[in-house]
């Protein structure tokens, strides 16, 4: 090898050295750059990792604390992950036990569940799936699920995730609300009362009964205002109350007004209107209940008519009793006169036998007169329409005792000072007079004793008139109060006295009854309403 060659080689070597040095330098620079970049990348990476860490822990927290249940499962239904809400909902915890969602499906919803799952896999998601599931303790819950498929980087489905919401209670509430609404509408629709919801005079809702009452259908009525189906004057009158209600002065009112039917006829109805108020107390709706009272009014009219007729015929009957008894009395007076004259004018001719017969005739006439007087009194008992006054019974009874004839051997005693009651003086006097008269008249004892007493309760005065007379056999206890029924053959008994007593007591809504012991006496008890 020549020196030249060596020189060339040397130079080449030094060039190479220089180049290498340069290259090294470049390399060094590049390395340095790379180092710096790496360091930078490292720190960025660290930052990123930190952030991911934060994010995933945030996500973990979110996932754990999600109110709705979250379930992640593989495509065979094996649950991979579930949050607290899911644990709580289903009762299973996959951290403790394995769980496949198929076991959760409610038997009847199985087909639906399978179809929905097939759709999920095919389309990637579904929403608003609603079905029933079993919980671990065999409870049944209704759930709402939105689900989606998770795919790997090759777009191949690998898992499914779902947000599950328990809608059991919500559904229950909704059902019971619907049920209530149904019940309410059944009531409203089947009510025999017409029901109308109106808003400031405009008809908003009606029920069947109201439609039938008016002969319009619902649509026709919704086109109308209340005044269109009312009589003008009556509407104006009702509007005054309506105004008061709108102002909040009253909450409801009732009015009798007429309604115009489709065919132009009208009917009377009792209308009860109530306000449905908003929170601020302003009226939102008026609810009106409409009751057809045409028949009721007709009945009332008929009843009034009947009452008038009854009053009239009652008066006629009373007048009749008066006229008849006066007409009956007239011939009795004549007979009495004629017999008296026969007795007077033929005193010398008539023997004792004939005189006796005439006397007996006169007595019969007398009795007949008594009877007629009794009928007159009986008929006029309920005729006197005196207003009830405060009556001092002690005074009345004392007066009565003065009026009636009391033989020496009979004593009448008022044991308890009698009260002041409300009533009609004439009737009350008649009542005591008849009872005391009987007690005196039929008394057969050497020392006759008659005691008057009374007790009271909240509603009634109860009086007792006790005698020590002959007593009344039990079989007559009811009979004696009937008109013309008498158990004595005395010339004075007409069988009217006690029936007058009973009639008076019944006018005071009281009762009369007797207790009696043969030969020891009788007590008449009677009540008068306070």
């Amino acid at each position: 090898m020549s020196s030249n060659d060596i020189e060339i080689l040397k130079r080449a070597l030094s060039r190479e050295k220089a180049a290498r040095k340069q290259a090294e330098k470049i390399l060094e620079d590049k390395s340095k750059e790379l180092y710096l970049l790496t360091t930078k990348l490292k720190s960025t990476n660290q930052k990123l990792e930190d952030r991911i860490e934060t994010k995933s822990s945030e996500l973990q927290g979110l996932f754990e604390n999600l109110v709705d249940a979250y379930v992640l499962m593989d495509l065979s239904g094996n649950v991979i992950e579930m949050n607290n809400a899911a644990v709580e909902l289903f009762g299973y915890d996959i951290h403790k036990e394995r769980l496949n969602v198929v076991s959760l499906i409610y038997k009847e919803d199985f087909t639906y569940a399978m179809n929905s799952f097939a759709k999920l896999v095919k389309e990637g998601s579904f929403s608003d799936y609603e079905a029933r599931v079993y919980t671990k303790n065999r409870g049944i819950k209704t759930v709402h699920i939105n689900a989606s498929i998770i795919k790997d980087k090759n777009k191949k489905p690998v898992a499914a995730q779902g947000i599950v919401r328990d809608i059991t209670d919500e559904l229950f509430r909704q059902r019971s609300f619907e049920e209530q609404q149904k019940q309410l509408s059944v009531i409203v629709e089947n009510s025999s009362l017409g029901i109308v919801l109106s808003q400031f005079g405009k008809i908003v809702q009606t029920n069947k009964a109201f439609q039938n009452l008016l002969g319009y259908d619902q649509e026709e009525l919704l086109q109308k205002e209340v005044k269109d189906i009312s009589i003008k004057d009556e509407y104006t009158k009702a509007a005054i109350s309506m105004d008061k209600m709108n102002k909040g002065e009253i909450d409801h009112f009732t009015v009798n007004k007429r309604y115009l039917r489709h065919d132009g006829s009208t009917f009377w109805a009792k209308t009860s209107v109530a306000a449905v108020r908003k929170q601020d107390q302003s009226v939102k709706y008026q609810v009106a209940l409409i009751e057809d009272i045409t028949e009721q009014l007709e009945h009332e009219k008929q009843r009034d008519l009947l009452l008038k007729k009854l009053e009239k015929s009652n008066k006629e009957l009373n007048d009749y009793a008066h006229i008849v008894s006066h007409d009956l009395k007239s011939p009795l007076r004549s007979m009495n006169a004629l017999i008296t004259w026969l007795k007077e004018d033929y005193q010398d001719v008539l023997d004792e036998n004939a005189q006796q017969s005439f006397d007996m005739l006169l007595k019969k006439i007398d009795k007949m007169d008594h009877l007629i007087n009794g009928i007159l009194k009986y008929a006029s008992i309920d005729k006197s329409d005196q207003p009830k006054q405060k009556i001092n019974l002690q005074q009345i009874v004392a007066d009565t005792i003065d009026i009636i004839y009391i033989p020496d051997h009979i004593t009448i005693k008022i044991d308890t000072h009698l009260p002041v009651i409300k009533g009609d003086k004439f009737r009350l006097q008649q009542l005591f007079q008849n009872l005391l008269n009987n007690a005196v008249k039929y008394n057969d004892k050497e020392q006759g004793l008659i005691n008057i007493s009374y007790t009271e309760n909240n509603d009634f005065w109860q009086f007792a008139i006790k005698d020590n007379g002959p007593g009344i056999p039990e079989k007559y206890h009811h009979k004696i109060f009937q008109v013309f029924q008498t158990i004595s053959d005395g010339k004075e008994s007409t069988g009217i006295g006690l029936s007058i007593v009973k009639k008076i007591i019944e006018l005071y809504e009281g009762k009369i009854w007797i207790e009696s012991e043969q030969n020891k006496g009788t007590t008449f008890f009677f009540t008068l309403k306070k």
Partner: protein
Amino acid sequence: MAFNFLLIEDDEIERLKFARVLQKNNYSHKLIEAENGEDALQILENNELIPDIIFLDLNMPKMNGLEFLKILKSNPSLKYTPVVILSTSDNHSDLKESYETGIAGYIVKPLKYEDYAHKIKCLIEYWSVNEFVNR
């Protein structure tokens, strides 16, 4: 002093009773009888005899006592004649209407003739001591 009585009464025996009371007591009063209100008006219009006192039954066919009384009271020359009602009825409304129209007395006819005779006698004696507008 002898009176002229007008007795308006449809019942024959009632008329006999009144006459008998007069006769038995030896009264010299004159008795004119009418069977009903119309007859009585006829008698009064004919001026046959002006009664001093009229005894009037209420319950009569044709014109009844109250109707007669009203006509009498509207007649300027007859309205001062005292009228005594002789009636079967002690009906409050009859009494009230009679007194309202204008009567001088109201007698309820008793059942017994003796009681009747006594009442009529009292009446006649009462009127015997009275003064009259028309006499």
